């Protein structure tokens, strides 16, 4: 007759193993600073200056002027789209809606969607688009403005691909990327807005980022 024995030290050992595995797979509780860093020599040593979002001034769906000041002390998710986009935009819009819904009542979280077709996407068109999504303009700004300024922001501030291309569906190319920006205008993450799993990660990172001072 066999007797199954669980020696106490074996149980303890397996518990230890489980907790060790837990430690190694634990999610990091800080996010990296993305983009090119600048280093400056100061009397006390070397200072790191992180890449930050440049000054901008655009107009949103309510005709309100939107600048960096609107995002002071808040974290936000930025992307580039156009309302008539027949390819990936409805997916990224649906994914951004998930973020909107999740952080709807959190006043420290905002969303900024820039049109890359400002000639067509003027205020009334953006208004119609936002209304059809049933989202609040205090939370989710759809902005239009000078085309060169928008493309410049995309490429140099958010590291997003945006441009005109007659060969692309709808006439514009863009990456569908979501950029996560912290309270001090630094990029802390870039995610593929067409992939639900990446957006899950983004939402987890937003929670981490909100705990930062």
């Amino acid at each position: 007759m066999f007797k199954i024995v669980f020696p106490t030290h074996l149980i303890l050992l397996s518990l230890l193993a489980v907790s060790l595995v837990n430690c190694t797979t634990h999610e990091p509780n800080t996010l990296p600073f993305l983009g090119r860093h600048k280093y400056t020599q100061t009397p006390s040593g070397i200072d790191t200056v992180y890449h930050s979002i440049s000054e901008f001034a655009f107009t949103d769906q309510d005709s309100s002027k939107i600048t960096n000041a609107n995002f002071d002390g808040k974290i936000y998710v930025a992307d580039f789209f156009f309302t008539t986009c027949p390819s990936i935009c409805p997916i990224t819009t649906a994914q951004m809606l998930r973020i909107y819904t999740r952080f709807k009542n959190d006043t420290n979280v905002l969303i900024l969607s820039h049109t890359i077709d400002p000639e067509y996407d003027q205020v009334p068109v953006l208004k119609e688009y936002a209304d059809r999504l049933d989202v609040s303009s205090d939370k989710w700004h759809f902005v239009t403005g000078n085309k060169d300024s928008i493309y410049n922001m995309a490429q140099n501030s958010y590291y997003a691909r945006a441009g005109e291309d007659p060969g692309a569906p709808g006439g514009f190319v863009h990456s569908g990327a979501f950029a996560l920006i912290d309270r001090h205008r630094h990029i802390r993450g870039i995610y593929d807005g067409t992939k639900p799993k990446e957006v899950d990660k983004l939402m987890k990172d937003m929670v981490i980022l909100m705990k930062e001072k």
Partner: protein
Amino acid sequence: MRFFFCSLAIIGLVMNCTPGSGNKAYEKLDHTTQIIFDKYMIQGKELYQQHCTNCHQSFGEGVRRLVPSLVQNISIDQPAVMACLIKTGTSTSRRAPRDNNPLKMPGNQKLTYLEIAELITYISNSWGNEYGLIQPTSVEKWLNNCSGLD
């Protein structure tokens, strides 16, 4: 005894997974039509993922009032309208919109009658829709009368 319950559970599971189960129209189909129906559902799903998911989403849920939902949508009862929509879209030019939604459904001129039949069969028998099999001959007939639907 345990074996009996296990096999019962497995049979139940298999029955649940049979395509078109719970579909009233499907139950009436004869053997040959059933095979065609199953084939159209598979092909239709692939075409849906290729041409429709971006806007109408994986389960036909759409995006609020921006992209209409296909789930138990009333127009599902009008496969003729669907055929024309799939072929010509909601507007040929975004500069001349029919309604004020900036997002237009693009047309798919390259789809064949068979492909459209497969696509409509899939859409109109998924997510609570139960229409039954759509034949390519019907699609051809409907597409010749699109102008009358405007």
